[in-house]
């Protein structure tokens, strides 16, 4: 069933433009306030989310494929998400955001069993707890990254840092760098509370 859905996904959004930043615990309320003013549905209260994500890999280190299974802890009825996330491309200076391929598909809740049957190996897991906002096609999340105490027990998670991870992302089917400009312009509004940047993931990986 998953395979079938993967075939369909070809026509959906496959590229993700995004920027990342973080904000200290003490400023997070100010940031949420500003986001509430800037984003769609300003009259609503903040939308919160708690997502549990498990990273699976197949193959030996160096030539492996990773897939992420994600599901909401807030809403157990929501479908699981299977996600493939590619390497983040820095691009040159003319592009103001990172770009990566990203394929997302909804699955049934036995996703982990299915992946294990395929030979995927459990790699790691974490829980994201926080708030999300929508502005046009952009999705903005402000969340704490939590380490899970013992395997497959997301309830036991503890934040790994007092700071919140802030991400703006925009999914699209074709490469359109004007989207990056849109994100950049929005990110400007959040300064100096949070400086959203192009984080070079390759540099981080080697350190």
């Amino acid at each position, binding site marked *: 069933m998953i395979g079938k859905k993967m075939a369909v996904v070809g026509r959906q959004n496959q590229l993700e433009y995004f920027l*990342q*930043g*973080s*904000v*200290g615990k003490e400023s997070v309320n100010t940031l949420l306030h500003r986001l509430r003013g800037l984003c769609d549905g300003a009259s609503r209260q903040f939308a919160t989310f708690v997502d549990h994500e498990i*990273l699976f890999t197949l193959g*030996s*280190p160096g030539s492996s494929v990773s897939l992420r299974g994600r599901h909401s802890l807030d809403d157990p009825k929501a479908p699981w998400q299977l996600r493939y*996330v590619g390497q*983040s491309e820095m691009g040159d200076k003319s592009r103001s955001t990172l770009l990566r391929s990203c394929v997302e598909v909804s699955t049934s809740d036995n996703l*982990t*069993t299915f992946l*294990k*049957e395929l*030979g995927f*190996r*459990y*790699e*790691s*897991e*974490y829980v*994201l707890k926080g708030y999300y906002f929508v502005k046009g096609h952009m999705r903005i999340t402000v969340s704490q*990254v939590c*380490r*899970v*105490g*013992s*395997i*497959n*027990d997301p309830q036991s998670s503890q934040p*790994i*840092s*007092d*700071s919140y*991870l802030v991400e703006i992302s925009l999914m699209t089917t074709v490469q359109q760098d004007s989207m990056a400009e849109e994100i950049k312009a929005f990110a400007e509004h959040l300064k*100096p*509370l*949070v*400086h959203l*940047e192009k*984080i070079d*993931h390759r540099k*981080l*990986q080697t*350190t």
Partner: protein
Amino acid sequence: MQDEKLIEVSLEAVTSRVQELKESTQAFLAKLEHEQLSWPSVLDNYALLSGQVNTLTKLLKNEKTPFFRNLVLLPLLVQQEPDPDIQKATDGRVQAFNHEVVPDYLRTKYDPEIEASEQKLEAMAASVPPDQAQRQIATLNELATNLIDTITSAREDWEGEQSAASRSSSTVNPDLNTLVTAVTFGKGLKPAKITKGRGSKAEKAQSGWPNEKSMNKAPSSVKVDAKTAASVHHMPRLTGLTVEQDLYNNKE
């Protein structure tokens, strides 16, 4: 003769400035009605308008500009019939120079009501004895000075806060690298379990995924032993993989 020329030139200048001001006000109003303006662009429009008002005021205060208030305006004709010239000059707002508009356009004094209340105020001011007036002036001055002091100190406080905020923003993106590596590569998420459990990682993995693992586990308890032994040696990743593959082979 020269005076007349001067007046004409400066009148023209004033008219053109006012015309510009009118046009940009109209454009702004039209934009407000028909477009969705962002706040920065609204501010831009305001800046334009206030700049134009400023040039107009400067022009009127200019030394070379004669005092228009010293000139006499002589109305020649008051009539009920619509006057095309006036219509054109006022963009159709005033149809005719008739008895309705004349009192407003040719007024040199305030409304009688305003004049009356002004007179009342003047009378009141005159009735105050001079020494009391002095005292009142002194009190007012004191108040004003205090107010200015408060504002200045408030401003200093505010600027101090601003600079403190900008200093705290030197800790821009606190812990960002940790967060990003955790989310992207899963770094920093695993060690906790190992230090916490201290036991074999493989065993924990099994306890985590009971359903299919326990099935696998049953037929080969030897493998599990191998696993626990392997993970004690500092190669958890590699051995974990091979053992797991073994398990799958075993199952087949």
